[in-house]
């Protein structure tokens, strides 16, 4: 139900911390804390630099990892949804004041 062609950005004030080998994130927008899997961490890493849609993020990651963009998109799709549902990323980048 989320429009895959929409651009998303990290929620304002998003915190991402590395603890040992694990990434943990907190979104002030939703109040949610998430332990990130590799795919989620990678997506956030790209979005922190610039907003994008799932296709553009996949392309960026594919270039970094020397992988096939289509395969990568399939791989990050579940993480993409999870990040949206938990308020770590938001559409457009504008959130309510």
């Amino acid at each position, binding site marked *: 139900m989320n429009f895959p062609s929409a651009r998303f950005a990290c929620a304002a004030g998003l915190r991402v911390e590395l603890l*040992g*080998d694990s990434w943990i994130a907190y979104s002030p927008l939703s*109040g949610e804390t998430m332990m990130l899997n590799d795919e989620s961490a990678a997506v956030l890493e790209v979005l922190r630099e610039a907003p994008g849609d799932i296709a553009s993020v996949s392309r960026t990651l594919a270039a970094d990892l020397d992988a096939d963009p289509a395969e990568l998109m399939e791989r990050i799709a579940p993480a993409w949804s999870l990040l949206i549902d938990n308020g770590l990323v938001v559409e457009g980048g504008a959130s309510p004041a």
Partner: protein
Amino acid sequence: MTGAHASVPAAPRLADVSTAQVADALRGRGLWLDVGAASVRARSDSPFLAPQLQRAYPEFPYVDEAPWADVHVALMRARGLRRWLRPQVRLQADGREPFQPFPADHPLPMMEWGGNLFIGQRLNQLLLLHAGVVERDGLALVLPAVPGSGKSTLSAALSLSGWRLLSDEFGALDPHTRHFMPVLKPVALKNRSIDVIRAFSDRAVLGPTFEKTRKGDVAHLAASAHAVARRHETARPGAVVLPQWQEGAPLSFERLPAESAFRALAFNAFNYQTVGAPAFDAAVALARQCPAWALRYSRLDEALAALEQVWPEVKDRAAAGGSA
């Protein structure tokens, strides 16, 4: 409550005051108990509460007048027919009766349970971990309450072995100073733990045993004079230990990664979500700063020895990390 001045005599211990006087206070304006990060005012018309309080809070000062309490509870005998037929006691707080009544001779467990619930709901200026906390050398040993942990029994044993008890229930962390604050309630021991602690030390001061509560048999270990005297002293983060009591298990004491410590702290708290970003930051800082272990044990003496053994490392780490 005001601090003691040289010209004002210290208040007597609750144990030294006559039970009749305690009962009078409870029937009148109330009795105030300052447990550190929170204060509780109790009132009651039950004849059972006064002696029970004296056994569970013997070292606390007797205070029958104070300008403030964070929590106000009244343990009142049920009205009407219930007064005689299987009599009950009800807990009233701020004009409401939020819980089912308890048997009339159980006002203390009801007061403890209700009081803890309100403390857990109200103190949102602090991050309230669900954990036992003891202190040594100014550093906190945090015991997150995972199910089956036996954290209360372990906290009790530690408090009888040279560690200062801050709380067996609330790891009350100020998210800005990152210091732990005492919430010094009596340790609620259940079922076999009661006899274990009684046997563990002859310095254990236990209140009456309440049978057939929702959690089985319950008895309260009173806080020592030492712990009570220092209940406004904080502790800096030291170590996180996840205890697991298991019948007959050999001792196992394994290092845990920071991520496990974070989980144990954040996802076992009363108000982690409510406190928001400062809670996240504090939990991350604790997980980074404090070494963490998983402790599986069946014998208290072995568990305590393992903690003693690792404590110098905890001190060194804290000194090197310069925990503020």
